Structures are given as C-alpha cells and as structure tokens.
C-alpha cells in the first residue's frame, strides 16, 4: 500500500476546513459552470441579467459564500503547498503568509464590492 500523499497535516483545523470547503465547492463550482456556460451562455451575459440573478437572496448569498470558500480553499491550498510541503521557514514563511493574506483580503473586498454593484437587495 502506497503512503498517503497529501499537502496537509490531517490533524489540523486547516485540513478540516479545506475538506469542508471542498465538499461545498464540488457542488457550487459545478452549478456555476453549468448555469453560466450551458444554461446561460457567457457570450450573452448582460449587466441586467447578472443583476437580476444577484438580486435574489438565494443566489446572492450562494455567490458570496462561493467567493469566500473558493478564496479560502485556493489560498489555503497554496499556503500548504509552499509552507507545509516545501518547508519554507523563517522570514520567507512570514512573507508568504503576509502576501497570501493580503491577496485574499483584496480579492474578497473586490468581489464583495462588485457583488454590491449588481444587487438591489440593499
């Protein structure tokens, strides 16, 4: 039996959150792709159409959760690859962590700003 290959320490909160967000993203990413490429075609996207979808609480909250979980899952994956697996330590670890935290915050803030432009819920 081969050893278990994983970038993660399976005892930590990071590992559990990575799995929980994965289970959520499996469904929502597939839904997102299906809705915006097969039901509605990306080439036909309009501001009004996006706005109509984002003005329902169900879709709006799903997309906000999608943004938060995808950012966490992706950035945490990069963190575990660079820091956990490749063994970066010291000031380099601090620098990598800082860059990833700042990049995540920028993406979430920018994503939320954009979401608020589309919605008329508030």
């Amino acid at each position: 039996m081969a050893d278990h290959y994983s970038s993660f320490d399976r005892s930590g909160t990071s590992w559990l959150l990575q799995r929980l967000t994965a289970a959520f993203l499996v469904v929502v990413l597939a839904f997102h792709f299906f809705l915006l490429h097969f039901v509605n075609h990306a080439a036909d996207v309009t501001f009004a159409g996006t706005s109509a979808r984002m003005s329902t609480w169900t879709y709006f909250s799903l997309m906000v959760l999608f943004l938060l979980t995808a950012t966490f899952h992706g950035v945490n994956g990069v963190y575990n690859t660079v820091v956990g697996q490749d063994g970066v330590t010291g000031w380099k670890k601090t620098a990598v962590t800082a860059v990833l935290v700042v990049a995540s915050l920028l993406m979430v803030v920018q994503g939320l700003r954009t979401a608020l432009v589309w919605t008329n819920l508030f």
Partner: protein
Amino acid sequence: MSQSYDRGTVEDFGRWRSFSAGMWAWIFHKFTGWVLIGYLFTHIAVLSTATTGPEVYETTIQGLESLAVVRLLEVGLLAVAVFHILNGVRLLMVDLGVGLEAQDKSFYASLIITGAITVASVPTFLSGVF
C-alpha cells in the same frame, strides 16, 4: 499490512516514468489547483469592470467572448475544473478511508470522465465564435 517505500521526492520529475497512479493524481491535482486559483483572481478582475458601469462590463465580457482563443481557454478551464472536482471527490473518499484499494482505478475514471465531459462541451463553448 502497510509497508513504506522510499520513493524519493515526487518533485523529481526525472522519475516520472516510475510514478504510480496516486502520484500522477497528486501532481494533476496540484497543477489544476494552481490554474484554478490563478483563474479566480483573473475572473474577479474581469467581473470588477461592472463597478465602472454596465456598458464597460458588457463590452469587456462580450469582447472577450468574441475571441476564439478565449473560448478555447474556457474549454481548458472546464477540463481543469472537472478534473479537480472529480479528483477532489476521490480525495475526500481516500481521506474517509472509502475505496482505498481502488484509488488508482478512481484516478483513471476521473481522467476518462474529464475527457468525455470536455469533448462533449466543445460545441457549446465554440458556438458562434467561428
């Protein structure tokens, strides 16, 4: 009875001929993960054009969608996303200890299903661009 082998580092690509299915799955999952997080940043940047007005948003999206190379990249993105999803489900199963003895077969199944879904999606992605 589990047994440990000294396989060296997976990153030593000179050893790719001796990689097992699980090691290929690990590499593909990592590669597709990097692509997806890179795309997420790009995606949010493109969608952010909505903050400057409806016309800019529509012009940007429709302009990008009119390019054949963008449509082809979307097919590639679908392939990457589908594999990451299917192999992700496989990893969740492995972590739960379900079907460990078939983990190599489930990797091959992930590849085949990814290929089938990708090929089937081509007409949808390329419609109207040529």
